[in-house]
């Protein structure tokens, strides 16, 4: 007979080390998969994880990818910590991009210092409003936020599709599904000449710091923590549960919206169909890999960003599809959840016990 029991206590050190273990197991399994595909495993892993960041350009690309992942995951940690399952960050990112992009297009022939802050603000508000939809439906109609937020992803993607093909498409763009290029005032400044790394990274870092203060030092953070651990206790303590649901979704949506607006005003510079390679979904993995802890999320976002880059180099050098990146992301999450299970539970092999009457 096999019995599964909850462990009494897990140490904090191990709690933060299991993500490292999960990454290690992912690498081992990755090596095996590459071997089975007929590649030299170590060489393949080198192409995947080392080659992409062996020069300055690569490092800059790593940060370009890690920035939105980190921002979104920070926002998601507010939701996940309080037991609100916002799966629709991708949609909130897209909607933030649409609203921010709309403002940018409004000012396409304006120059001025005020343009960029306006766009960023609009993007954050856009994401926030979009995230409020599942929150409000959950509060008043007891709907499942997982389903609603997920379905809204497709709503916003289709809306973006319609806009870039129809009303917002570039009049001089030969019917390509994209908008005009934004004006220079609407672009996030590039940090180093010749590299794509942009000022969006500062927005991410500030949000990391703010999230840390809010989650660990404020009454709001305390309420979020307690609600996540025991809703019954939160109710007993008299926390305003409904207000909090709305609030964490708003924070989460605003972060995703900022990530969206950071992409279009940063590396992209216009609106088109593919403003995000599913950052909103991948950020869920980042949030959990980082243990919903702001500092952890910074490291996790760098690691997961690397799988995006690795997939691209692997595509070039090994001729494997770029979806290998998603395989690695999936494996990280799988091993993380599996090692978490063993972290919180122990399995006992009892053998068959005979009962005496």
């Amino acid at each position, binding site marked *: 007979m096999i019995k599964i029991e909850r462990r*009494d*206590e897990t140490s904090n050190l191990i709690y933060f080390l299991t993500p490292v273990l999960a990454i290690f197991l992912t690498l081992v399994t990755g090596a095996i998969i590459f071997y089975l595909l007929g590649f030299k495993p170590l060489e393949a892993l080198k192409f995947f994880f080392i080659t992409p960041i062996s020069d300055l350009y690569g490092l800059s690309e790593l940060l370009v990818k890690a920035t939105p992942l980190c921002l979104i995951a920070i926002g998601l940690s507010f939701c996940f910590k309080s037991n609100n399952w916002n799966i629709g960050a991708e949609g909130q990112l897209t909607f933030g991009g649409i609203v921010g992009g709309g403002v940018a297009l409004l000012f396409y022939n304006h120059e001025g210092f005020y343009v960029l802050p306006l766009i960023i603000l609009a993007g954050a508000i856009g994401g926030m409003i979009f995230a409020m939809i599942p929150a409000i439906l959950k509060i008043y109609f007891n709907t499942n936020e997982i389903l609603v937020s997920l379905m809204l992803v497709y709503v916003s993607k289709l809306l973006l599709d319609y806009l870039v093909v129809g009303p917002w498409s570039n009049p001089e763009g030969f019917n390509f599904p994209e908008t005009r290029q934004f004006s220079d005032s609407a672009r996030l400044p590039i940090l180093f000449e010749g590299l794509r790394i942009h000022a969006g990274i500062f927005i991410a870092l500030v949000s990391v710091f703010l999230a840390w203060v809010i989650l*660990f*030092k*404020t*009454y*709001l*953070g*305390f309420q979020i*923590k*307690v609600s996540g*651990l*025991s809703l*019954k*206790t939160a*109710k*007993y*303590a*008299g*926390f*305003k549960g409904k207000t909090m649901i709305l609030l964490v979704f708003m924070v989460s949506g605003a972060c995703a919206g900022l990530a969206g607006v950071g992409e279009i005003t940063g590396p992209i510079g216009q609106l088109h169909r593919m403003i995000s390679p599913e950052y909103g979904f991948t950020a869920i993995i980042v949030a959990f890999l980082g243990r919903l802890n702001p500092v952890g999320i910074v490291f996790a976002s760098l690691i997961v960003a690397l799988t995006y880059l690795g997939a691209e180099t692997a595509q070039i050098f090994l001729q494997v599809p770029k979806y290998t990146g998603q395989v690695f992301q999936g494996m990280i999450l799988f091993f993380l959840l599996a090692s978490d299970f063993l972290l919180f539970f122990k399995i006992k092999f009892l053998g068959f016990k005979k*009962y005496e*009457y």
Partner: protein
Amino acid sequence: MNTKLKVSKVSKIYPGCIANDNVSLNFKSGKIYALLGENGAGKSTLVKILSGVINPDQGQIFLNDKLLKLNSPKDAKNNNIGMVFQHFNLFETLSVFENLSIDSEKNNDQLRILVNNILKKYNFKIDLDVPILSLSAGQKQKVEIIRCLIRNPKVLIMDEPTSVLTEQETEDLFLSLKKFSKEGILIIYITHKLKEVLSLCDEVAVMRKGKVVSISRTIDEELSSLANKMIGESLNKIKKMTSNNFSEEQILTVSKLNFNSEDPYEVNLVDINFTLNKGECLGIAGISGNGQNELFQILSGETLSNNGSIKFRGKEISKLNPKERREYLMAFSPEDRISQAAVPSLKIYENVALNNFKTSNFFEKGLFNERKIKDHSKKILSNFSVNTDNVNLKSQFLSGGNLQKLILGRELITSPELLICFNPTWGLDVGAINYIHQTLVKINEQGKSIILISTDNDELLQLSDRISVINNGKLSKIMSADEVNPEKLGLLMGGGLVD
């Protein structure tokens, strides 16, 4: 077909409590047997043993003189022992027929014929192809019964079956059970409702504190004699420790309170009215699951009542949440100390911070004032003799007694005018129980009031000035503790009336 079920010298011991103490019972088919007792009397343990969920430490069970080895519920099923639990085990989104076919070896066509025959025979009106969630509680119970009938049971055990049923549904159920009994199915009916015992059953075994204290024919019994047996005579010996000199000033007035729950497993509260004086302890007795939980939550503000008023020190508070009620100097100690009153994985000082007042300044300008909370926590730990002074300790490492002291301390250190506690000594050792009882007496002496909701009658008689009994969501008239005797208490708890 004659069935004989014999329970012989069965004992089951849990750490700190003897759930079944040398229980011997004989059942024969053709009769309906009642197993009567209040909470913790050992009924559920016995039923779990009969249905193979747990193993007894000692003793045997014989079915028709054959020794039964029940290592799992499956063994019970294979020996034709059927069981309908209080909480249904049905898949809500699957249809009735799908639910029935899950654990049946028959193929679907055979099963459908069989089920249709059962429906016809007992005049059950259930559509087999609708999902379970569209059924009423009574119909769901019928599905559970049909599930047993498919297997031609020799023994059918019903655990508190009427707690979720309406009156009409209860009558229907009784008719069906009588029919089953006539057909030779042995029926064991577990309940704490005295009237049901008299109206349905032929024989009654009364259990108290793990022992069978009486076996008799129901025609030889009446409500009051059963009540006496269920509660026991020991109560008379306990003297109340508090003095009766509480003031006439009313501190809490609850009037015309009603609560209709959307959850079928919750109890609706009906027309709750009472007043509480300053310095008084009002005890609320009752068998658990009769609305205590709901009453506690409505008094604490975790749930809001549909209508009615709660006036505390002259202010209407029925729409306030627990935090706002605390600001008016109410304090709450819920039954579930492990997962509601505190979070086990949080540190002691964090659990103290749950009770955050405007005046306590735990959070200055929204920021966590760790030092202040820790100082405050240390004060609680020493004032309420919790056996640690480490405020960074996770609460899960406190024993039940120390955790309860911490919770009571957290609630009481702000000197509230009213403490509402629900089973405050449940599961604690004698030392901790004494400490908590003394604390409660002290509060009364300081002129503060207490509402003590408890399923422990000894505790209620020890501490309360007046006592009311809650049964099926209704409060009985409030009696002075002196006039309460086991018979009255038992009658009221079992759903009877006293003058």
